[in-house]
C-alpha cells in the first residue's frame, strides 16, 4: 500500500499514538529560532540580489551597479512609506499556532497507559523568551520589545490577526532592507555610509526586532573607521545584551586592543 493511514491518525495502537504525538509536540527553542531567522534572512537576501542581477545583465559589475540603484530606490520608497505611516507593532514571528502541536497536546498521557513509566523531574519553564534587551543608543532608551501576550491583546483590540501579521511582515521586511543596505556599504569598504544607514535604521525602528544585527554591523563599521574605543565599548554592550550570540566572540576579537 503506497499511502497507508498514518499511525497517529488511528492506524496505530494507543501507545504508538502517544509516542508519536510526543514527537510531534516537540518545539524548538524560540531564541535559537529567532537567531537563525535573522542570519537566514540576511544571507538569503544577499544571495538573491546578486544571483538575479547577474542572470539578468550577464556582467557582475554592471549587475551590481543596477542592483544597488534598485535597492536604494526600493529602500528609499519603503523608508518613506514607513516614515509617513505609523509603525505597527511587530507580531512575534516565533509564536506559531500549530495544529499538530495542539493535537499532540490533546493526546492521552503516557502514564495512563504504561505502569512502568517512572516519574521524572518536571522540566523548567517552557521557552518563549522574546528578547527584552536594552537599547543600542544609551541616551534614547526604548521600551522593551512587545511580549507575545501583549501582542495578542493588541491584535485583538486593534485589528484582525491577518492585518497584524501583514503589518509585522512589512515591518520586518523594511528592517531587513535597511540593514541590508548598511551591510552592502560595509562590504564596499564605506563604513561611514554604513553608519549613516544604521543611524537611519535606529531612527526608523527604535523598537526594531533586528537590533542585534544592527549593533553588530555598527561595531564592525566603527572598527573599520578606526574608532576602536567606541567599537570596544559597544562590543561590551553587545556581549551583555546578547551573551549567546554567535557573533559575540568574533566581535570581541575584532575590537581587541593591539
Amino acid at each position: 500500500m503506497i499511502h497507508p493511514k498514518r499511525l497517529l491518525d488511528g492506524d496505530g495502537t494507543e501507545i504508538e499514538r502517544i509516542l508519536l504525538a510526543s514527537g510531534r509536540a516537540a518545539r524548538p527553542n524560540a531564541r535559537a529560532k529567532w537567531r537563525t531567522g535573522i542570519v537566514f534572512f540576511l544571507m538569503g537576501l544577499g544571495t538573491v540580489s546578486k544571483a538575479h542581477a547577474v542572470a539578468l545583465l550577464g556582467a557582475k559589475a554592471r549587475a551590481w551597479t543596477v542592483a544597488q540603484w534598485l535597492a536604494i530606490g526600493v529602500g528609499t520608497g519603503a523608508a518613506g512609506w514607513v516614515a509617513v505611516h505609523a509603525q505597527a507593532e511587530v507580531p512575534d514571528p516565533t509564536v506559531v499556532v500549530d495544529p499538530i502541536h495542539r493535537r499532540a497536546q490533546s493526546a492521552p498521557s503516557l502514564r495512563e497507559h504504561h505502569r512502568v513509566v517512572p516519574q521524572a523531574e518536571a522540566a523548567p519553564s517552557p521557552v518563549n523568551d522574546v528578547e527584552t534587551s536594552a537599547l543600542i543608543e544609551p541616551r534614547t532608551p526604548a521600551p522593551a520589545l512587545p511580549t507575545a501576550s501583549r501582542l495578542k491583546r493588541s491584535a485583538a483590540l486593534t485589528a484582525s490577526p491577518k492585518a497584524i501579521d501583514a503589518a509585522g511582515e512589512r515591518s520586518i521586511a523594511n528592517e531587513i532592507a535597511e540593514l541590508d543596505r548598511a551591510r552592502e556599504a560595509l562590504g564596499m569598504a564605506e563604513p561611514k555610509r554604513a553608519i549613516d544607514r544604521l543611524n537611519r535604521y535606529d531612527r526608523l525602528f527604535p523598537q526594531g526586532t533586528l537590533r542585534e544585527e544592527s549593533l553588530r554591523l555598527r561595531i564592525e563599521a566603527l572598527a573599520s573607521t578606526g574608532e576602536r574605543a567606541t567599537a570596544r565599548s559597544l562590543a561590551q554592550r553587545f556581549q551583555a545584551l546578547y551573551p549567546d550570540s554567535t557573533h559575540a566572540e568574533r566581535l570581541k576579537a575584532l575590537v581587541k586592543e593591539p
Partner: protein
Amino acid sequence: MLDRVLNADVALPSSSLGALELHHLFKETYDGIWRLLRGLGVPTDRVDDAAQQVFLVYAERRADVVRGSERSFLFGTALRVAHVVRRGSPREVPGEIDYACSDQPSVDELTDQKRARQVLDGILDQLDPELRDVFVLYELEGFTMPEIAGIVEVPLGTAASRLRRGRERFSALVRRYSTFGLPSTQEAGR
C-alpha cells in the same frame, strides 16, 4: 541598459519581496526541520546548530533551487545534515532530552510528554537509518509518499517498502517496550 531592464522577461526582485518570501518559508518550515532533525537522532545540544546549517545551505544555494521545491530542498538538506551530525556524535543518553514547548502544559503533562519523547527517541534509535528517514517523514512530519521519494531520492516503490518495513519494526519495538522496557544499546546492535 535601462531598456534592457524594463523589457526583461525576468523581473528583478526587490529586497522587500525577497525578505517576505524568505520570512514565509522560514516561518512555515523551521519547526518541521527542527523536529525532523530531532526525529532523526541529532543530539539535543546540536539540533539548533544543525537547523541553522540547513537554512544557511539553502540561503547559499537559493538561486539553484527550482521554484516550488524549496520545502523538499530544505527537508532533503536536513536529512543529509542529520546523517553527518549523527555520524560524528555518540548516542544520546536517555534523560537528557531538552523538551521545550511554547504553550505551558501542566507539570504532569510535561513530565509524561518528556518521558514519552525519551521512549520514542529510544525506539527510533533502533531503526535502520534508511527506514527511520522514511518513517519519520511520513509518520511525524506528514509528508506524502511521492514527496518522501523526492526528498530521499529513491523510487516511490522503494520509499513505500521502507515505510512498510519501518512501521513493522517500530510496532515490534513498541510491543517489546510495552513488555520489557527499552532495549539496551548492545541489544539494539543485533
